């Protein structure tokens, strides 16, 4: 390499290095951020514009600056939260996007503020009750967390079955009277299949969806106490009611109700399948309203509850409750300001604006009155979402349930065998716990 080239290389390198340094490094760079602003980390990048508008409005009203920073996808957001928690650099408002067990560890580590006093002072009355319970801890919770309210719900969601009205009509079904019982559901599936239409789709490749569908029938057959007894090991997974839950999936399989490839299908693909009229029914969350609108605005659809079992003792509940909640950093010097902002943020006007912009159900129950009809229908289901439990099943057993449900769908296992395998795992986990 000639001397000339060497100098060119060195010059380019140092020029770029100079650019980096001159554009700000180290402490000098950090000091650029506005320390007086309330910092919020959220994971829904598609809401950035709506958040910014509300932050601007709040600034105009109070003179307090709020900065929303959105990071996607969710696993990156989660990594960022974990790293920030380790360095005690969490923002003023955030969500660890965790299950209750992990949420409890954040609370016990002092990262999340207890909002019970504020909630009991009238704040909680503005929310759908179910939107609060998922982030509250009861007296006898198994994690030893101080009882109270911790999360502030920004919106709510629930999991229902969407049905395509045009495809229902094509199969000779009443589009205004969707199936209400399991029997009617299976019959509808048969008619749809006979008309050459795939009856049912969902992202069952994502195990939480298949698990949530099954959990609706767990509530239907066992009720709250029955579920607690199952988690505590007092009721076996080989109980005939559990075998029946696995059997429901087998029945759907036998009647060719599932869309092809459902067990490996992610929800985005399932949404596309339903939106393009390639399946008549889809199990999906209330966020689907916005998704289907963006994919196919002329899609004619309605929603229905997962059909209940007519001989079941308990009401059928659906997965849902809070859609996205926010938590206040207990260590933040701006904790009170952050709480005040969230109070303002969850008032009717702001919530209605957010709902209109994002087509989600607001957590403020009064704002739900301002929604389009389909979301109003969804909002009615919020009160029928799963109840709060003082404990949750171990993730290993939950995984076993979900994978065995998938095995039943592809005909790999009988309902009885699937139930036995889950019970075997349950016993293993109970031994480990002891």
């Amino acid at each position, binding site marked *: *390499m000639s001397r000339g080239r060497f100098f060119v290389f060195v010059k*380019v*390198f140092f020029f770029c290095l100079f650019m980096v340094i001159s554009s700000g490094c180290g402490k000098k760079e*950090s000091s650029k*951020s506005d320390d007086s602003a309330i910092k919020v980390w959220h994971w829904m*990048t598609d809401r950035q514009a709506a958040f910014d508008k509300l932050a601007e409005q709040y600034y105009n009203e109070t003179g307090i600056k709020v900065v929303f920073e959105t*990071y996607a*996808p969710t696993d990156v957001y989660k*990594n960022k939260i974990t790293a920030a928690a380790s360095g005690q650099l969490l923002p003023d408002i955030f969500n660890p996007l965790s299950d209750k067990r992990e949420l409890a560890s954040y609370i016990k580590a002092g990262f999340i503020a207890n909002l019970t006093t504020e909630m009991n002072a009238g704040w909680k009355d503005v929310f759908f009750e179910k939107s609060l319970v998922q982030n509250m801890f009861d007296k006898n919770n198994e994690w030893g967390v101080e009882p109270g309210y911790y999360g502030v719900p920004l919106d709510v969601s629930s999991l229902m079955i969407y049905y395509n009205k045009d495809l229902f009509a094509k199969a000779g079904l009443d589009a205004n009277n969707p199936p209400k019982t399991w029997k009617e559901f299976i019959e509808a599936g048969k008619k749809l299949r006979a008309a050459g239409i795939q009856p049912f789709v969902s992202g069952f490749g994502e195990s939480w969806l298949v698990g949530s569908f099954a959990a609706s029938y767990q509530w239907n057959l066992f009720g709250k106490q029955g579920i607690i007894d199952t988690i505590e090991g007092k009721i076996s997974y080989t109980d005939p009611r559990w075998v029946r839950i696995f059997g429901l999936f087998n029945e759907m399989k036998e009647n060719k109700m599932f869309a092809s490839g459902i067990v490996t299908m992610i929800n985005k693909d399932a949404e596309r399948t339903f939106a393009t009229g390639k399946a008549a029914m889809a199990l999906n969350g209330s966020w689907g309203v916005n998704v289907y609108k963006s*994919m196919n605005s002329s899609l004619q659809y309605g929603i229905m509850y997962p059909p209940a079992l007519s001989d079941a003792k308990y009401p059928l509940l659906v997965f849902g409750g809070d859609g996205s909640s926010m938590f206040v950093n207990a260590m933040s010097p701006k904790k009170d300001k952050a709480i005040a902002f969230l109070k303002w943020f969850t008032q009717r006007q702001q919530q209605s604006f957010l709902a209109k912009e994002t087509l989600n159900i607001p957590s403020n129950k009064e704002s739900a009155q301002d929604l389009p009809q389909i979301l109003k229908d969804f909002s009615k289901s919020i009160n029928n979402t799963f109840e709060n439990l003082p404990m949750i099943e171990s993730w290993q057993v939950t995984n076993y349930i979900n994978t065995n449900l998938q095995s039943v769908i592809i005909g790999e296992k009988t309902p009885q065998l699937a139930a036995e395998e889950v019970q075997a795992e349950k016993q293993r986990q109970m031994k480990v716990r002891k």
Partner: protein
Amino acid sequence: MNSFKTKKQILDFITHAILLVVAVTCIFPVFWMLSSSLKTQEEIFTKMTLLPEVWQWSNYVDAFIKAEFGMYFLNSIIYTVVGVSAIVLVTSMAAYGFARLEFWGKNFLFYLLISTLLIPIPGVFVPLYLLLKKLSLLDTRTGLLLCYISGALAFGLFLLRSFFEDLPKEIEEAALIDGCSRFGIYWRIALPLAKPAIATLVILQCLAIWNEFLLALVVLQDKAKMPIQRGLMVFQGTFITDYPLLMAGLTIATIPIVIVYLLMQKHIVKGIAAGALKG
């Protein structure tokens, strides 16, 4: 003779058919990206056509403005140029040292460094975050660049050491006799001879840094310092992805890296082949 010709023709036909399938498989995603970048969101989902009905050129303008590409572009260029330059400089010197110098624990140190290749990036998020915080380098360009450089060390060493080891020692000895210093030998003789391997390192690291955003998202908080991939994130919501703008954004983001690839193309094949043989 005729049967030989026929056999050759059949073999050529099969080879070309296979190559055609492979080429189409490689080109189709790029074609789909370009085609989707000119469609509307609804058209992508409801009409399975290869070409758009109405060509939405405005998608490119929208993507550029919405994603604030101007700012992110400059950031990515800085990260890529500085990062890759530093990687080449540091790894080539280290690799030359490992190849030519004798010191205690040389092999142990080398394999220790190489073993860091086995650690996945998400596995180092928390320790890196804490380290950068201690050094007051969190949310700084310098901090991110140092992460990029240290992350590429192992691969660069792996690629370049074997290259330097196989260079004829006689040339270096001749240079020594002529009075050249160790650094002079590295800079004037070894480095120019390792051009194909360095070209490979440059293109692979350009790709890695240009496309990286996991680390950037964790280390940086200030939007103004984020790389171009952060801009693309704007179009990927939790529930909805704006495919036309995402594809337009991807096309814009791909252009510089394609240019780098075309510029260094002739060295890359040589470098990879040499690395594969010697490595």
